[in-house]
């Protein structure tokens, strides 16, 4: 267990012109933390992970494990345990031989090896599967062998590259709970790469949201969800309405903005929002923080329903307010609400938040 620090790490690939796949990334991960790199495909999250593993070397910047500089250390000297997206299990070895591979290289004694392999397979609920061939295992079992193989060497950090993306939806949810449990038990620092925001929220201590090679926000899941730093983060994590609203007055942590119906409201803003009266603020409000009400209710915005979609738990609506579509997720929608109806929208002002573009 060790802390991992990335200092202004950038990576440019020779073949991709002069563009950076990872651009000036600063991350420090505490020992024992479950840290997730989250972002859409091509955002640089896997490249970042592969630099931590040592498969790529950064074009500039430093990577440290504790105080040790590992920036240019070859992958076999880093003592990380990686779980690959396609598991990368050695097809010519049995389950036990796969798990034993790293121990053999570390010249762990026979008895100790056997004990640790049993322990690791037990940890992933595969005790007794040691003699199986890899192609006799289901996808979920293969995934767990890959995890056991990475854990058995007691790596300084566990690296997971979209390990759940090849599993079906139900198994994915079960396995993410398992991975989190195993990581907690082992107390290992874990760096997890995913494009699935629900997965990231459910598993992580902290998340770094990446876009276009840059880190847009680092924070705990709740923080990222409720206080997204940018419009991108707001939209990428869950769903969000990002409204362009005129700034009436601006204070240190509050900005008063004008609403489409002419009323005004105070909205929480980050300290360094830099907005002044007359500017346009981007205000994020989540669909579940808008309530459906009668159009005549005082303080409610009015609009016309243009889409209704019943999903079981909630009803998703699109309501056009002063020409702008606004997404609403409401749990109690009056029966018979249909496209074309005039409705009122009640804003949960505490949950509105100014974001950066």
């Amino acid at each position, binding site marked *: 267990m060790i802390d991992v620090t990335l200092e202004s790490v950038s990576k440019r690939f020779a*073949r991709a012109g002069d563009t950076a796949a990872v651009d000036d990334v600063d991350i420090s991960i505490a020992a024992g933390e479950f840290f997730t790199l989250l972002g859409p495909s091509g955002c640089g999250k896997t490249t970042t992970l592969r630099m931590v593993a040592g498969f790529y070397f950064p*074009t500039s910047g430093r990577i440290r494990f504790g105080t040790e500089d590992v920036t240019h250390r070859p992958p076999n000297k880093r003592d990380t345990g990686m779980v*690959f997206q396609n598991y990368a299990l050695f097809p010519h070895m049995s389950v036990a031989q796969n798990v034993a591979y790293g121990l053999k290289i570390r010249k762990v004694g026979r008895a100790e090896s056997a004990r640790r392999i049993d322990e690791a397979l037990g940890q992933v609920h595969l005790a007794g599967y040691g003699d199986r061939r890899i192609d006799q295992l289901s996808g979920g079992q293969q995934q767990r062998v890959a995890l056991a193989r990475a854990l058995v060497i007691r790596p300084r950090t566990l690296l997971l590259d979209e390990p759940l993306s090849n599993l079906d939806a139900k198994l994915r949810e079960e396995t993410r709970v398992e991975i989190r449990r195993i990581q907690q038990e082992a107390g290992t620092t874990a760096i997890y790469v995913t494009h699935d925001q629900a997965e990231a929220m459910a598993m992580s201590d902290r998340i770094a949201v990446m876009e276009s090679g840059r880190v847009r926000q680092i924070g705990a899941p709740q923080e990222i969800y409720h206080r997204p730093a940018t419009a991108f983060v707001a939209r990428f994590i869950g769903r969000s309405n990002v409204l362009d609203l005129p700034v009436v007055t601006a204070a240190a942590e509050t900005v008063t903005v004008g609403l489409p119906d002419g009323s005004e409201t105070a909205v929480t803003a980050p300290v360094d929002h830099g907005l002044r009266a007359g500017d346009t603020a981007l205000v994020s409000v989540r669909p579940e923080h808008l309530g459906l009400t009668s159009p005549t209710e005082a303080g409610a915005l009015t609009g016309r329903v243009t889409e209704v979609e019943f999903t079981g738990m909630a009803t998703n609506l699109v309501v056009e307010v002063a020409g702008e579509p606004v997404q609403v997720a409401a749990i109690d929608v009056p029966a018979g609400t249909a496209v074309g109806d005039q409705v009122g929208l009640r804003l949960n002002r505490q949950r509105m938040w100014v974001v950066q573009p």
Partner: protein
Amino acid sequence: MSTIPATPSPATVPPVTTDPAPPKAGRPRRGLNANSPWFPYLLVFPLVLILFGYVVQPMFATFAESVGVDGVANYSEFVTGTGVARSALLTSLMISAASVLLCGIVGVAMAFLLKRFSFPGRRLIEAIILVPAALPPLIGAISFQLLYSETGILPRGLQHLLGTEDPVLPFTGIGGVLVVHTFTMYPFFYLAASAALTGMDPSVEEAAYNLGASRVRVWRTVLLPMLTPALVSASLLVFMTSLASYTAPLLFGVDRTMTMQIYINRTNGDLPMASTYASVLAVASVLFLLGMRWYEGRRSYRSQSKGVASHRREITNPLGKWLALTASVLATLVLLAPVATIALVAFSRDGSWTTEVIPSEYTMQNFVTIFSDPGAYRPILNSLRMSVLATVGCVVVGVLIAYAVRRLDFRGRGLLDVAVMLAWALPGTVVAINLISAFSTGNAFSFGQVLIGTFWIMPLAYFVRFLPLVFRSSSATLAQLDPSLEEAARNLGAPWWRAFGTVTLRLMLPGVLAGALLAFVNGVGEFVASVLIYTSETAPISVEINNRMYSFEVGTAAAYGMLQVVLIFIVMVFSGRLQNGGRAAREAVKWTA
């Protein structure tokens, strides 16, 4: 063939904001570090040296030889002369064009019959369809000579049957050459067309019928256009192989072909002229190779949908059934006849077969001779020793080149690939002439030794000719291995060499083994290059067969031939059993037959 790193596509990479130029990342370290930017070059450098020294540089030496004495005068004969050079070139081109046509008709027809129809005997024919092509070049040509030439079994048999004065329907000269070419090269078309037909989505054809097209129209507008890419590459392959063909013109006495002129000029001691012919053929090979690479992968119509598997049509009408049955019996006979003939003749007493349809006296003596007479089994030892040496070289170099081309990122990767495949594209006669030109004096790549007239030139020629087999076969298996397997091993602490050995190489093994076996049997059957560079000490089996044929020891020649044939079938069965290896081998054969 672009499998290398996960370089993000430009579209997904953000524009760079104004960043100062980053400091250089790689600092020098000791030892072989696979992550260092220098690592690929360290590994590739010796490989480049080998390919340059034994494939590329000899080609230049040949060119130098061809212009050394008379300047370009030799070349102008091809353009303006009325003599041998021009007519040899034209004859070669003509034979190649005709071969393409004949092989195309036979191969595509066979593919359609076997892949689209169901009839008795189909499975047997599918199993033996590649047998004639699998024979070593010399023994294959000899078997056709024994079967279809003026003195052949079929024309003489018909003569006896019909009571005519002369043999009936004998194939001689160019006709004979074309028969050999058709039988040995139609598999290029057969394999390409049947792969295209199997990979084709049957629902595309069904859609055309559903839209109201007639059967002829479906053929013309759907099936043939979809087969086009396969047919174009097969045509190129057959054309090139025909141009390189040497044994068929030799046995049917067609002197005015490029390859025969190389041989004739070389034996007459006119090396500059032989080199000129070789250079012209080499240029043709390079052009062909580039054309092939350009066309390859440009278009292909593989099925993308799952669902309905292609189905065979049952032949239902009674006449058709009888026709199909007769045709398949006939096809089986024709396909097995060459091997059967060699087997039969191998047991005939030398000198006993004169004007009879088939030999009249049989004996085991031929086999006793080749295994007991010291002079007679030396060629066998020679062939085995030279093939083993060449195979070892092919495996070491071929596997590393395959790894470098598939897995490493370095400048000139494409060139390395082209250089290996050049060895494949060059006709055997040209390879021999190139080695003669390069190593008739010592040079750096022969450590200052003259190689011509020594033992070493032979395994070297085999190495150059069959390296692409191991390369292709290894490369095909490597393509199916996920690069993350090796990364996983590295991540678990294995240094590069250990990860390569315990994971990558281990998993490549079936393909490597299949390729090595192919290289080995091809070495044992090699004739085309050997005949230009052997000495009496180093004559391999095929050269011995040729010499025995000349001294009318047909039985003994066929006995040697049987040895090669048996070896080939053992290897074919064995590599078919290798997991994945069979496929890799087939892939390699498709490219190098």
